[in-house]
C-alpha cells in the first residue's frame, strides 16, 4: 500500500512542482539586439523566439539539469547548463558571428571570378558566351574586361602591358600549352575551347597564387563542368559548319562526345574579304569528355580533343614584291585529366595532368617550316584545413616541353630543337583573422634542367572588408617565366624573365551593382634580348632587358538599374615601356594602347523571347616601328573601334536561333604596317598596311537540343 501512495505522491509531486521562468536578451556585438533567435531547452519542446527587441521569456515544467540553447542564423550557437528548480533564470546572451569563408572577405586584387557559385560574380560564364563581339570565344569575352588590350592582328590576351606570351591558361589545374588555334601571321586567332565546357572561370590579371608559375602577366583558370544532368543530343548548325554532341549518363558517371566540321569557304564567297584565300580555313574536330564519381567525394575527369585545320592564303611578300601562297596545316591533340578527392576529415587532394601534341606545317613559296610541340604537365596539390580560419596548400609539379622547328628550303634544311623540364613546388597559407581580414602568403620554387637555373618567387595578398559592401585588396609578388621558345631553340644561356607586381584594388558592390578601381605597377627585369650577333649563335642572347607597366583600371557592372537589362563598362589607362627582344632602347611596345574602353549591354525581352546584346570597344592608337624612320616605334596606328551586336531568339525552349555582326558600322580598322626585311634600291623599306580579314563578320546559327523531356535548350552555348 505504501508503495502506491509513494507513486501517487510522485506523480502528483511532478505535477505540483513549480514552473521555472526563463527570460533574458539575445544580442550580438555588431548588430545589437537580435530578434528571431531561437531559445530552447535541448531535447524538450520548451522554447521561444526572441522578440523585436531581442528579449525572450518562457516557462517550463521540467526540473533538473538541462542545456539551454540559443541559436540564430549566421551566428555560432550558444549553449549553457541550467538547473530547473522553480527559481527564475535570467540570462543575457551575446552571440558571436559564425565564421564562414563563403561570406567572408575574398581576395579580389587582380582577379575576376565567375562561376555557378552563389555569390555575386563580376562576370559569369553565361556572360562570356552571350557577349556580342566575342563570337563564343572565351578569350574574346575576356577582352571586354579592364586590363586587356585588343590586338586585332593577334586575337590573344594582352594583359596590363604584358605580351600575349606572358598569359597562361589552365584547365582543372593542368597547364594548357596551346590554348589558341594556329593562324596565318597577322590574322586573329580564337581559343580552342568551347566556353560551355566550363562551369567556372578565374581570370587573374596579376598577383596570383604561388600555385601558378611560368606567367609574367596573367593566368586564366578554367574549371570544367561536373556531372551533366541528363542524356541529351545537341545539334548545332552554324554558317561556318555543323557540330553534334551526345551525352550519355550512368549512375556515377557520364560521357560526352563531340564532333564538328567548319569550313569558312561558303561564307567567304558571300561576304567580301580583304584577304586572298586560296583555300578557306577548314577544320575537323572532335572531343570526348568523361566524368566518373569515385567513393563519396572523389571526381575523376578526362577531357580529350583533336583538331585538324588547314588553309592557304596568298600574302604579299614585300621582300620579293610578289604574292606568295602561305599554307598551314595544324594538328592538335590535347588530353587533360584531373582527380579530386577528400582524404580524411581535412585533406583535399587534387591530381591534374595534361598532354599536348601540336604540329604546324607551313608551306610558303616552295619552302616548308614545321613546328612541333610535345608537352606534359603533372601536378599534385594537397590542401589541409588546420582550422576554419587557416588553410595550407602545398604542391609539386613537373612540366616538360619539347619544341622542334624544321626549316626546309630548296637548298637547305635547318633543325632547331630544345627540351626543357621544369620542376616546381609551392606552399601557401590562407589565414583569416576574422570575416573582415584575410591574408594569403606563399612561395614557389622552380628549377629548369635546360637553363640550369632556379628561382624562388614569394607571393603575398591580403584583403580587408571596410564595411558591409566595400573592400580593399592588395597583392605583391615575384613572377618568373622562361624566355620565348623562339630564343630557347637557339640558346640555353638565358635566365628566367621576371616581373614584380604591386596591386591595390578597391571594390564596392551592393545588390547587383559592382564598382571596382585598381591601381597597379608591374616592374619587369631580366627580359630576354637579342643582341647584334647572328640569331643562331647561343651567345647572341642575354637577359639585359627591362621595363614597366603602370596604370589603373575601372570596372562597373550593373544588373539592377535597368529592369531585364544588364551592362558593364571597363576602362583602362596604361603607361608602359620596355626594352626587350630586338628593341634598341626603352620604347612603348607595339601591343600596348594607353586608353581602352569597352561597354557591353544585354537585355532580355520576354515577350519576344529574345536576348539581344551590343558591345562597343575603343582602343587608343598603338605604336609600330617604321624602319625608314630614325626613331624606334614612333608611328601610330588608327584608334581601334568596333560596335558589335548579337541576337538570340528562343524559337522553342529547345531551339535557339542566333545571329551576330561584329563591327556593324564598319569602322575602319588597321593594325599598323609590315615592312620588307631589307631596303630597296632607293634605301626605302617597302611596306603594306595590316588590316582585318574583313570589315564586318556575320554569323548565323541554329542550336537544337534533344532530350527525353524535349524542353531543355542550349541557352548556355549560344556562340
Amino acid at each position: 500500500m505504501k508503495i502506491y501512495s509513494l507513486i501517487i505522491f510522485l506523480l502528483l509531486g511532478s505535477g505540483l512542482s513549480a514552473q521555472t521562468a526563463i527570460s533574458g536578451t539575445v544580442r550580438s556585438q555588431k548588430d545589437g539586439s537580435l530578434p528571431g533567435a531561437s531559445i530552447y531547452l535541448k531535447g524538450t519542446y520548451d522554447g521561444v523566439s526572441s522578440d523585436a527587441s531581442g528579449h525572450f521569456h518562457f516557462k517550463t515544467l521540467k526540473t533538473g539539469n538541462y542545456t539551454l540553447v540559443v541559436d540564430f542564423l549566421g551566428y555560432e550557437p550558444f549553449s549553457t547548463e541550467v538547473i530547473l528548480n522553480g527559481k527564475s533564470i535570467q540570462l543575457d546572451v551575446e552571440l558571436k558571428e559564425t565564421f564562414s569563408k563563403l561570406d567572408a572577405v575574398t581576395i579580389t586584387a587582380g582577379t575576376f571570378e565567375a562561376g555557378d557559385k552563389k555569390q555575386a560574380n563580376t562576370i559569369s560564364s553565361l556572360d562570356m558566351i552571350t557577349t556580342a563581339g566575342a563570337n563564343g570565344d572565351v578569350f574574346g569575352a575576356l577582352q571586354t574586361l579592364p586590363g586587356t588590350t585588343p590586338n586585332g592582328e593577334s586575337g590573344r590576351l594582352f594583359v596590363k602591358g604584358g605580351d600575349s606570351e606572358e598569359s597562361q591558361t589552365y584547365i582543372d589545374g593542368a597547364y594548357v600549352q596551346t590554348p589558341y588555334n594556329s593562324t596565318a601571321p597577322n590574322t586573329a586567332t580564337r581559343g580552342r575551347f568551347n566556353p560551355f565546357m566550363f562551369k567556372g572561370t578565374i581570370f587573374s590579371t596579376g598577383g596570383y597564387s604561388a600555385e601558378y608559375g611560368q606567367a609574367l602577366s596573367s593566368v586564366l583558370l578554367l574549371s570544367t563542368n561536373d556531372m551533366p544532368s541528363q542524356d541529351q543530343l545537341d545539334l548545332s548548325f552554324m554558317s561556318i559548319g555543323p557540330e553534334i554532341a551526345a551525352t550519355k549518363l550512368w549512375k556515377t558517371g557520364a560521357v560526352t562526345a563531340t564532333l564538328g566540321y567548319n569550313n569558312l569557304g561558303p561564307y567567304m564567297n558571300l561576304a567580301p574579304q580583304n584577304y586572298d584565300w586560296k583555300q578557306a580555313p577548314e577544320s575537323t574536330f572532335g572531343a570526348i569528355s568523361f566524368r566518373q564519381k569515385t567513393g563519396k567525394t572523389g571526381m575523376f575527369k578526362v577531357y580529350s580533343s583533336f583538331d585538324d585545320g588547314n588553309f592557304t592564303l596568298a600574302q604579299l611578300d614585300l621582300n620579293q614584291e610578289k604574292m606568295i601562297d602561305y599554307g598551314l596545316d595544324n594538328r592538335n591533340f590535347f588530353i587533360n585529366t584531373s582527380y579530386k578527392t577528400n582524404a580524411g576529415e581535412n585533406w583535399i587532394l587534387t591530381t591534374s595532368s595534361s598532354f599536348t601534341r601540336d604540329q604546324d606545317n607551313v608551306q610558303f613559296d616552295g619552302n616548308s617550316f614545321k613546328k612541333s610541340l610535345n608537352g606534359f604537365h603533372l601536378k599534385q596539390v594537397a590542401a589541409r584545413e588546420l582550422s576554419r580560419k587557416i588553410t595550407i596548400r602545398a604542391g609539386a609539379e613537373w612540366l616538360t616541353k619539347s619544341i622542334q622547328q624544321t626549316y626546309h628550303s630548296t637548298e637547305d634544311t635547318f633543325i632547331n630543337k630544345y627540351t626543357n623540364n621544369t620542376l616546381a613546388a609551392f606552399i601557401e597559407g590562407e589565414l583569416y583573422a576574422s570575416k573582415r581580414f584575410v591574408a594569403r602568403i606563399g612561395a614557389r620554387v622552380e628549377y629548369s634542367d635546360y637553363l640550369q637555373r632556379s628561382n624562388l618567387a614569394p607571393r603575398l595578398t591580403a584583403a580587408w572588408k571596410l564595411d558591409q559592401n566595400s573592400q580593399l585588396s592588395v597583392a605583391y609578388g615575384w613572377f618568373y617565366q622562361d624566355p620565348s621558345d623562339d630564343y630557347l631553340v637557339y640558346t640555353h644561356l638565358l635566365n628566367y624573365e621576371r616581373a614584380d607586381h604591386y596591386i591595390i584594388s578597391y571594390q564596392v558592390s551592393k545588390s547587383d551593382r559592382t564598382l571596382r578601381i585598381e591601381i597597379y605597377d608591374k616592374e619587369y627585369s631580366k627580359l630576354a634580348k637579342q643582341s647584334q650577333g647572328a640569331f643562331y649563335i647561343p651567345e647572341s642572347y642575354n637577359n639585359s632587358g627591362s621595363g614597366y607597366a603602370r596604370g589603373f583600371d575601372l570596372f562597373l557592372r550593373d544588373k539592377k538599374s535597368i529592369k531585364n537589362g544588364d551592362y558593364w563598362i571597363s576602362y583602362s589607362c596604361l603607361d608602359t615601356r620596355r626594352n626587350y627582344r630586338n628593341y634598341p632602347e626603352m620604347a612603348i611596345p607595339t601591343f600596348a594602347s594607353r586608353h581602352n574602353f569597352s561597354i557591353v549591354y544585354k537585355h532580355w525581352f520576354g515577350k519576344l523571347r529574345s536576348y539581344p546584346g551590343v558591345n562597343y570597344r575603343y582602343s587608343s592608337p598603338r605604336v609600330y616601328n617604321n624602319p625608314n624612320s630614325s626613331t624606334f616605334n614612333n608611328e601610330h596606328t588608327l584608334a581601334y573601334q568596333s560596335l558589335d551586336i548579337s541576337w538570340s531568339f528562343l524559337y522553342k525552349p529547345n531551339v535557339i536561333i542566333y545571329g551576330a555582326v561584329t563591327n556593324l558600322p564598319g569602322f575602319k580598322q588597321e593594325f599598323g604596317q609590315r615592312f620588307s626585311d631589307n631596303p630597296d634600291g632607293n634605301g626605302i623599306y617597302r611596306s603594306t598596311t595590316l588590316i582585318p580579314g574583313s570589315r564586318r563578320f556575320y554569323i548565323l546559327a541554329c542550336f537544337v537540343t534533344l532530350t527525353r523531356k524535349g524542353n531543355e535548350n542550349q541557352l548556355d552555348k549560344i556562340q
Partner: protein
Amino acid sequence: MRTTLISLTFLLVSFAGMSQKNEYYKAMGESLGQYATCRTIEDFQSLGNKFSMIADAEKGEWLPLYYHAQCYTIMSFMEPSDAKKKDDYLDVAEKSINKTVEMAPGESDIFALQAMFYSARLVVNPMERGQKYGMLSGQAVGRALGIDPTNPRAKLIKLQNDMGSAQFYGKDPKDFCGEAKALLTGWDEFKPKSALHPNWGKQQVAEIVGSCN
C-alpha cells in the same frame, strides 16, 4: 505485490514515453496552427525555430525537418531584394531537406518540397540559374509524382514551374488555367496520412484559379 510493482513501473515508463510522444503531437499541432498567422519573414523564422527545436527533440521524425525547410524556403521567396539573404535562408532549408531525403526517401511530399526549394534557388537569379535549377526542380517534381502520382502539392509545384517558365519565355501563363481548375476541384480527394502530414497548397491553387478570371 512484486508483479504489481513491475507492471506499474512499466506503466510509468510507457506513460513517460507516451507523454513525450504526446508532447510531440501537441507541439506539432500548435506549430502547424501557427502557419495561418504567419505574415512576415520574422513570423516564419520564429515558426521555423519551433520546428527546429522539435526536430532536435524528436530525432526520428522527418516532419519537423520538412516544415523547418518549408519555412526557410518561404522566407527566401518573401525576401524582397537581398540575393545573399535569399541564399542564406535556402542554405538552411537545404540542410533540413537533405536530412529528410535520407530519413524518408519514399515520401512524395519531401521531393515536392525539394522541387519548391530548387525553384527558390532559380528565382534568385533566373538568367544564370534557370538552366541548372529549372532542370533540378523538374527532376524533383518527377520523383515526387513517381512515388505518388496523386500528390496535389507535387502537381501544384509542377504547375507553378510551368507557369513561371511560360512567363519567362513570353507565353501566356493562362494556358495552364484548365489544369489549375482541375487541380483545385480534385484537391480534397487526396487524404494526408495523418493530421501532421503536409496538407498545404489548396489556397495557392485557389489563388492561381482566381487570377485566371
